[in-house]
């Protein structure tokens, strides 16, 4: 009754093409952003900001990247971890080679470098499809991690193979990386980057290029016949996707953990991000956030349940049971709603539109 688009008259094309056409949606989004930008940094504890919100934001960005490639363009990829590592190491090399470079430029360039690497590893997708491609992208995953481990140049010949972010600032004097950075500054910086990139992604997938991706996803031969260039479109998807994953990797290394080794981006990271987009919803930017929240929060919850119940279980047993419950919940969610949390959100909104007169 309240939440509906009927009666919303638009007099300009801009208004018609807005992302959120229903006023309640706009208020909701404004409130969400206000909470994210103002309430959370003021009220949340350091643990919440540093150990939950930061990885959530960073992995949401990676999930958006993978969602562009897998959810929108239909190219199943298991190489996300490799691309995140590329972003992290590119950012490290850039910031140590050019110490005066602004962190925003470092992020941008590391994203672009990762995009180039992504294009390179996207070339096989022209001939290889489906699960064959998924396994083929594992080649990039293993190769990139091996490369960063093997060649000292990438880590500036550090003995342990670990890279640490140099202290960097935005707006002149606010530290966002290194030990002097406050957790709130880190959080707000990451949030701004993620919100901006999510907005760009949302608009990208609604535009011409997004429609081309979806045509390729639904059937690439048919898309080619109606005049969509397969080579360019697939490579664009790989480029944009790796751009996002690269920035996510750089944020992970520089802002979330501060120092990182290649192993942080191993194949399990790729699977984690893939879980996020499938639980969240393939082909949905919103779903990337929902999925990331789910996958980040679930293990934390599982970890705390035994203590909350007052049970004392040995640590290794807990981790095994966590595995079990995690696997079972994934299966449960897939059975209940194979199209992910974004679909549940959609259904809720549709119900709300009819409420309270369901006819």
């Amino acid at each position, binding site marked *: 009754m309240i939440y509906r688009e009927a009666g919303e008259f638009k007099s300009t094309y801009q208004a018609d093409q807005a992302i959120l056409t229903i006023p309640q949606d706009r208020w909701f989004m404004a409130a969400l952003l206000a909470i994210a930008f103002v309430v959370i940094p003021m009220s949340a504890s350091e643990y919440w900001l540093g150990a939950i919100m930061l990885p959530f934001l960073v992995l949401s960005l990676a999930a958006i990247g993978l969602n562009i490639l897998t959810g929108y363009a239909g190219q199943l990829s298991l190489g996300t971890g490799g691309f995140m590592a590329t972003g992290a190491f590119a950012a490290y090399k850039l910031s140590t080679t050019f110490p005066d470079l602004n962190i925003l430029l470092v992020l941008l360039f590391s994203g672009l470098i990762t995009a180039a690497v992504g294009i390179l590893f996207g070339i096989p997708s022209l001939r290889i499809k489906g699960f064959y491609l*998924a396994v083929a992208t*594992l080649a990039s995953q293993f190769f990139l991690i091996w490369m960063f481990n*093997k060649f000292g140049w990438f880590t500036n010949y550090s003995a342990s193979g670990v890279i640490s972010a140099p202290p960097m600032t935005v707006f002149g004097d606010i530290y966002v990386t290194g030990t002097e950075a406050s957790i709130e500054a880190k959080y707000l910086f990451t949030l701004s980057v993620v919100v901006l990139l999510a907005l760009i992604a949302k608009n990208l997938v609604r535009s011409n290029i997004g429609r081309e991706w979806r045509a390729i996803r639904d059937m690439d*031969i048919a898309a080619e016949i109606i005049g969509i260039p397969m080579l360019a479109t697939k490579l664009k998807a790989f480029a944009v996707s790796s751009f996002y994953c690269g920035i996510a990797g750089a944020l992970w290394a520089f802002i979330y953990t501060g120092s990182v080794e290649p192993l942080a981006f191993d194949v399990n990271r790729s*699977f984690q991000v893939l879980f996020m987009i499938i639980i969240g919803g393939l082909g949905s930017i919103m779903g990337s956030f929902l999925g990331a929240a789910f996958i980040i929060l679930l293990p934390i919850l599982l970890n705390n349940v035994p203590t909350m119940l007052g049970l004392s279980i040995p640590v290794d*047993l807990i981790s*095994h049971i966590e*595995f079990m419950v995690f*696997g*079972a919940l994934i299966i449960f969610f897939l059975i209940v709603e194979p199209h992910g949390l974004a679909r549940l959100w959609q259904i809720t909104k549709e119900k709300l539109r009819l409420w309270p007169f369901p006819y």
Partner: protein
Amino acid sequence: MKIERDVLFIIMVSLLLMVIIPWTAGQLSEEIFFEWPFFFEVAIGGLLSGVMYSLVALGFVLIFKASGVFNFAQGAMVLFAALTLVGIHDMGVPMWLAIILALFIMVLLAIAIEKLVLRHLVNQEQIILFMATIGIAYFLDGFGQTIWGSEVKILDLGIPNEPGFYFDGKILINDFDLVAALIASVLVIALALFFQYTRIGRALRAVADDHQAALSVGIPLQHIWTIVWAVAGMVGLVAGIMWGSKLGVQFSLALIALKALPVLILGGFTSVPGAIIGGLLIGAGEKLAEVFLAPMIGGGIEDWFAYMLALAFLAFRPQGLFGEKIIERV
């Protein structure tokens, strides 16, 4: 089985390259030691370890063929089977009985997977089913270790595990690998006969060809899936026994699935002989590269070389060497 001419050509060329590249590397570089007996020793060792990869890949192929599910849980099934076997054996049960009990448990597992998971996901997209099998993999990894513990266990079947000398003592081959290869060949022949000559085998082939047509002539799809998962579980048990007695039964067994994937795409998802030949090519190629090429680029290439090798093959045959030709209609 008829082999297409270009497949034969690709195999020939790759075999030739496997000889030429190490030889050239040996001529060009001082660091690399090249001698014909040594070359054959490495190649045979590689072929035999390739057979071990094939054992794991075989389980993938069976399930993909019959249900179109890319079963990522195969590695977890290998681990689970091996853990169960060792766990039962440690309780004082003789080995032959433990193997039978483990087989029985794998069948139960197959029934459970069909009833609890697959049945509810009929008609879903392949990626959803793939995700569900990753869920199964997580569950099994946790479940097996919760019940049987996570410490490394030793599985001793009395297979000799020492190097033997063959061909006048010139070539050194691990006896264990020979036994493994023998067991793998027996398994493959048994599977081929099972698929070719039994009633169930015929039904399996029918389902693999066309789900709907199979249903319409009265083949119960759900039973077939249970049987296929049970057979894959048994293959997993054999792989678990072989890998377990080679490396010890531990969590890392679940990761050999990652070793089997390049074998799988090289051979083709739908082909049993493809899994074998893919395993041989990957095994030999990987070992040869490790010995004759790796010193030049820094070593430790076994993580990714198999994948790159498979990728190179896919560039020529996108469906794998023996996979069904992908025909797309608009």
